[in-house]
């Protein structure tokens, strides 16, 4: 029996040390990279684009070109409009994109640049020219919200500015949020297996995990086609993953408001129970039973849970990262007998604790401490009293894992200290299988390494 520790209060520091979040425009750029033929464009100074490219490349090991208005001091004084327009022309000339997707930065938000107006002027100026890209823009001041707000705002803008109504069709929209390239690939397979017509928005399955090439692609192949986005208002339903999205206006919300598209918002399908929920929804929408392939996958997963349950039971985990992923991971852990002791995010949706309580239900003897707006200094401070056995999150928690001398199970973004971050599978029965094996083996390995015997069987 585990006993409840005294409930810690959230530390309340003014300074931030080792943030557990990224800035809003970075999230927008990631979302835009999942659109076919799109070049992400930051309206701001040159550094933002370069920093974000470097940060994203270190995870994906793939090219990512983010254009910039490269504003200098005089533009900050007189406005960034002329440079924005020049930049658009240059990107259009060199990349021949279908879409230029523009996100603002703290600089251009604060000097009060009206990007919408500049774009209308630009479109007026270039009227009659052929082959011009579509322009989509989103406001992403980095001083309000995290990269996840930026990600969802970008998708919202995409849908709001491109999607139109029309005769209803059989398509189902799937907005899974920010997941790995492997996850997007898995979702394609699942939707196809249910024989559903679907639009996956965004789609980083190919754009950020492409093959070795002979000719460099200016814009990486893949991504959600613009045509499909334009038609999203005609779809018969939208599925959106994200139990903490409540306070945001997401793509799903906009489609529901403008086109009355029914919105099914569910948790990220991480672990058996949340994946079951997703599959039940797909059964309803498709009118088909779960394909045998997935029924078998689920069966093998249950079998694996049974084979490995003793090695993980009662272990204590710290989970951090993007709120919806934290909720999903929490659900997986509680169903395999691991006790989440601290769930933390740099995000501040106000919904994290409730969403976690919903997935953990009454399966836990001890409720985890759940805190939003956290940085790694605060997480480390709280970790001290919690005797964790493992840590689950992206690679920036490594210093904490090293300090505690316990395994770090790498999930989410970024993974800067290992290869293959884009290929980590989190979703579906296959993702749960991967995560369960990884977590269980980490626990077994830790015990084996720490053992004076060096035994050869588990």
């Amino acid at each position, binding site marked *: 029996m585990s006993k409840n520790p005294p409930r810690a209060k959230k530390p309340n*520091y*003014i*300074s*931030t*040390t*080792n*943030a557990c*979040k*990224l*800035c809003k*425009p970075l999230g927008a750029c990631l979302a835009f990279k999942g659109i076919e033929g799109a070049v992400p*464009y930051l309206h*701001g*100074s*040159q*550094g*933002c*684009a*370069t*920093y*974000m490219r*470097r940060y994203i*490349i270190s995870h*994906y*090991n*793939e*090219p990512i*070109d*983010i*254009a*910039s*208005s*490269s*504003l*200098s*001091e005089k533009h*900050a004084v007189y406005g960034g409009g002329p440079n*924005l327009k*020049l*930049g658009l*022309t*240059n*990107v259009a*000339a*060199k990349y021949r994109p279908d879409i230029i997707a523009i996100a603002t*930065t*703290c*600089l251009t938000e*604060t*000097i009060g640049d009206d990007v919408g107006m500049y774009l209308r002027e630009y479109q007026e100026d270039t009227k009659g020219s052929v082959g011009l890209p579509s322009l989509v823009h989103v406001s992403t*001041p*980095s*001083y*309000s919200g995290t990269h996840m707000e930026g990600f969802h705002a970008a998708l919202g803008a995409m849908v709001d500015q491109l999607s139109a109504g029309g005769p209803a069709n059989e398509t189902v929209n799937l907005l899974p949020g920010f997941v790995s390239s492997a996850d997007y690939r898995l979702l394609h397979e699942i939707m196809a297996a249910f024989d559903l017509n679907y639009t996956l928005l965004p789609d980083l399955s190919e754009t950020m995990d*492409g093959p*070795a*090439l*002979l000719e*460099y692609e*200016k814009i990486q192949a893949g991504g959600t086609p613009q045509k499909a986005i334009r038609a999203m208002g005609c779809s018969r339903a939208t599925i959106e993953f994200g139990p903490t999205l409540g306070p945001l206006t997401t793509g799903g919300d906009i489609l529901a408001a403008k086109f009355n598209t029914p919105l099914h918002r569910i948790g990220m399908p991480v672990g058996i129970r949340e994946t079951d929920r997703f599959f039940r929804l797909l059964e309803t929408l498709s009118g088909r039973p779960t394909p045998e392939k997935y029924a078998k996958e689920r069966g093998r997963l249950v079998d694996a849970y049974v084979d490995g349950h003793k090695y993980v039971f009662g272990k204590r985990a710290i989970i951090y990262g993007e709120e919806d992923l934290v909720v999903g991971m929490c659900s997986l852990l509680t169903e395999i007998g691991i006790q989440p002791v601290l769930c933390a995010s740099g995000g501040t949706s106000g919904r994290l604790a409730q969403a976690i309580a919903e997935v953990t239900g009454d399966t836990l003897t001890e409720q985890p401490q759940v805190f939003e707006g956290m940085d790694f200094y605060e997480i480390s401070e709280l970790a001290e009293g919690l005797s964790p056995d493992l840590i689950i999150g992206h690679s920036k928690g490594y210093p904490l894992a090293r300090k505690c001398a316990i395994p770090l199970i790498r999930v989410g973004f970024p993974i800067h200290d290992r290869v293959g971050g884009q290929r980590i599978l989190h979703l579906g029965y296959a993702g749960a299988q991967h995560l369960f094996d990884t977590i269980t083996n980490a626990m077994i390995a830790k015990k084996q390494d720490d053992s004076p015997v060096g035994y050869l069987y588990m």
Partner: protein
Amino acid sequence: MEAIALQERENQIHIKGEAPFNLVCNKDSLAGAISQRACVFCGSRVVLYPIADALHLVHGPIGCAVYTWDIRGALSSGPELHRLSFSTDLQEKDVIFGGEKKLLAALGELIERHSPKAAFVYSTCIVGIIGDDLDAVCRQVEAAYGIPVIPVKSEGFKGNKRAGYQAACDAMFRLIGKGDTSSISKHSLNILGDFNLAGEIWMIREYYERMGIEVVANITGDGRVADIERAHGAALNVVQCSGSTMQLANMMEEKFGTPSIRVSYFGIEDMAEALYDIARFFKDPAMMERTKKLVEEEVKKLATALEPYRKALGGKKAAIYVGGSFKAFSLVKAFRLIDMQVVMVGSQTGTREDYLELEAITDPGTIIVDDSNPLELTSFLKEKEVDIFVGGVKERPIAYKLGIGFCDHNHERKEALAGFEGMLNFAQEVYSSVMSPVWQFVPRKKSVPSSR
């Protein structure tokens, strides 16, 4: 065929031998051209970052701090305060009402928590716009805690990385002159512009010690506030990576009369030349003897060790794209030492003098480029059929996507490439990429018969 470069950028590309040298550089990046450059803040942050016992607080929204968290592989032999990422994480209300109060409170909180020897407070784009008075806040905190609290004027939009170097030098200059220099030897120097990546400054310091020279301050690799405060007591400033710290050397020469020399620690030739230049400066025959012996020993060890690499790599082609040009000179020579040919070389922030020097030391036909971008670089790599590309993180996927080898020569690398040993590591790095069997599978090799 479509032009490789945008028209506005054509004069920033030069092909040696094809036209008189007239390369344009040191200008603002072109909007929409996808420059590989960062910003003023980046320049300041990377230069000051390795000062390990100082607090580095980024005043701005979270991005600027989080993208530079532990960004350099700059090692410290003691405190590691520099490896933490501190931010005021400005929120909308701070932008509206001003961020000074938050900055004041954050500084106090962090200084009390970590007891740093000094604090650097970095200004970001937004701080420049909302007009927070960093000087006033820093003065107030300095008075309250009795440590130097120094504003770094690094608003991102006020130029490129080069302007950031200047801001970093201005900030460090405020420390210099405060310390006691009475015990410093007349044979002494400061190391400027080495950042102790993978422990490089420790190798270099060892050379100087073998020569009988006292190193006063590391600026900034494995740097300490107290050392920098007495840097004016050194007899000489030895400046590497001149783009980043030459300004500091110039300011020190003007105020304290400290002379400086420019060196490079990359490659055998330049490393040896650096040590000889320094020995000549001190005009001490015994020191010159020790230096000769040192170089002889090191070069002897290397010559045999490098031979297998020279054999394997001879005739292969290399391309270079780095932040500052000075490093590029050494790389050109280092490649020559292992019989490789440099066919393209460029930098983000080179000066006209730098590019003239590059034009002088490269072979005819070599492409020389300023402030390039992924599309240009890609086409150069393909056109020149390059075997290895040397650059940083942003250049790596460009090479790999095309099935071309890559050598990390940026501030994140984990291999020491400076010094005599560094030359061997460099050859190994190049070898381990160029000679990997994985290239047999990439489309480039499948379609190109093994004619090269």
